[in-house]
């Protein structure tokens, strides 16, 4: 267990000392979410319908933007190599890195989303569902993203490749994440969608650290 907590601590300290990285992701999210109302116009009805989807896509892109950093720095300075020869299960170390990545790129988005939701005139109860859906969905994005980041490690043009690999896998998360909010505002209730998101999260938690660890071993061979 200290493999996970130790890794989280290490990466959170590193992120605190390199705050620009976290802030870039956050500003990207804010700017993308703010651009849409400017482009679409001030009609409240349209914005209200589009809001959840736009916020979800913005969160997804922002999370993807920071994926490249998940392993790249450790790969470049050799600490990743050291991780592979630590007497700890690599999948747990990877899980620690994913948790730290989410704390730096997912959680801030979740916390900021109600403020941005106000731009789209979303009602308080809709905002609540939006926050819950992001809270369940963004960790899945980090977990799936870790596999893509590990597979493309050290490749030229890895950034674009990660997007191509990972975006199709993000689709179900997006559908059920944005769908939860929509279902709630249309009166159907978003619980079903949220339960499915929770199931995605559990499945990704179980499988993705292991898959990413295998991908890392291949990348470093």
């Amino acid at each position, binding site marked *: 267990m*200290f*493999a996970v907590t*130790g*890794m989280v*601590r*290490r990466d959170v*300290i*590193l992120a605190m*000392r*390199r705050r620009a990285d976290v802030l870039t992701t956050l500003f990207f999210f804010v700017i993308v979410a703010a651009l849409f109302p400017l482009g679409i116009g001030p009609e409240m009805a349209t914005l209200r319908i589009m809001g959840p989807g736009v916020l979800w896509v913005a969160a997804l892109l922002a999370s993807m933007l920071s994926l490249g950093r998940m392993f790249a720095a450790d790969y*470049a*300075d*050799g*600490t990743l*190599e*050291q*991780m*592979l*020869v*630590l*007497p*700890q*299960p690599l999948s747990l*170390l990877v899980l620690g890195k994913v948790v730290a990545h989410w704390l730096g790129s997912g959680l801030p988005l979740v916390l900021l989303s109600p403020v941005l939701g106000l731009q789209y005139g979303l009602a308080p109860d809709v905002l609540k569902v939006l926050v819950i859906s992001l809270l369940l969905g963004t960790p899945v994005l980090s977990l799936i993203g870790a596999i893509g980041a590990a597979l493309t490690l050290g490749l030229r043009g890895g950034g674009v490749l990660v997007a191509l690999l990972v975006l199709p896998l993000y689709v179900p998360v997006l559908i059920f994440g944005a769908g939860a909010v929509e279902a709630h505002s249309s009166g159907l209730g978003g619980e079903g969608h949220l339960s499915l998101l929770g199931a995605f999260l559990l499945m990704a938690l179980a499988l993705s650290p292991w898959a990413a660890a295998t991908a890392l071993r291949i990348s*470093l*061979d």
Partner: protein
Amino acid sequence: MLFGRRSLLERAGGSGQPGVPGGLPPNAVCRPNPSAPDRLSQSLEAVSLECVRGDRRLFSDVGFALEPGELLHVTGRNGSGKTTLLRMVCGLVRPQTGMVCWGGKPVSTLGDEFFRQLTFVGHLNAIKDELTGRENLMVEAALRGNPVSESQAASALSRMGLKGHDRLPAKVLSQGQRRRTALARLLLADTPLWVLDEPFVALDVHAVETLQHAIAEHVAADGMVVLTTHQEVPIKAGRKRTLHMGGSGTGVAA
């Protein structure tokens, strides 16, 4: 060059069984050393390792055996596969054929049990620029599962001649000072096997001396060291073996 290596392989295999390219030679098994049964859990053996990168055979039929209190100096010109061999010993690179064994068991099946015995200082320093020297050592030791105190980390760094620099973020350190920080983990490690890839690079005369002393001490205490370097390593204690990579006599430990 490729063909030259191949003919070497055939000659090397000629003494016993013919070399089987692409498959494990029938005699490639790790065997327990009968002369030192009590140290069975601490011996490193590599049997007919082969590495193919793309369509190029980097080396083949490389083997050695290392007992406690021995140092293996891997020599060879640039590009002869020294680093790859060391990474193979650490389990970072999978050999095409052959195997690396620890205490008579293949390291690929031992997993964490083998990594607990190993300290690896690679070509890259593996220190984080944002952390101080002390923090770097402490973070790694904590992840390893045997945390060290701040004073232990500080004393290891001062032994490597970094007194007064151990509270600075690693990004302001010079290349040699970073190398010393990376090597300081050897002084904290309590592992029998050290694998060092060009440990003397970027070190000044004084640091080279310190490191040589540390290596000699480790070998004298029944430790094992595998290293590559283009410098001479005068060690007084223990036994020194040499493994020459490439050229004539490919990969035969003397």
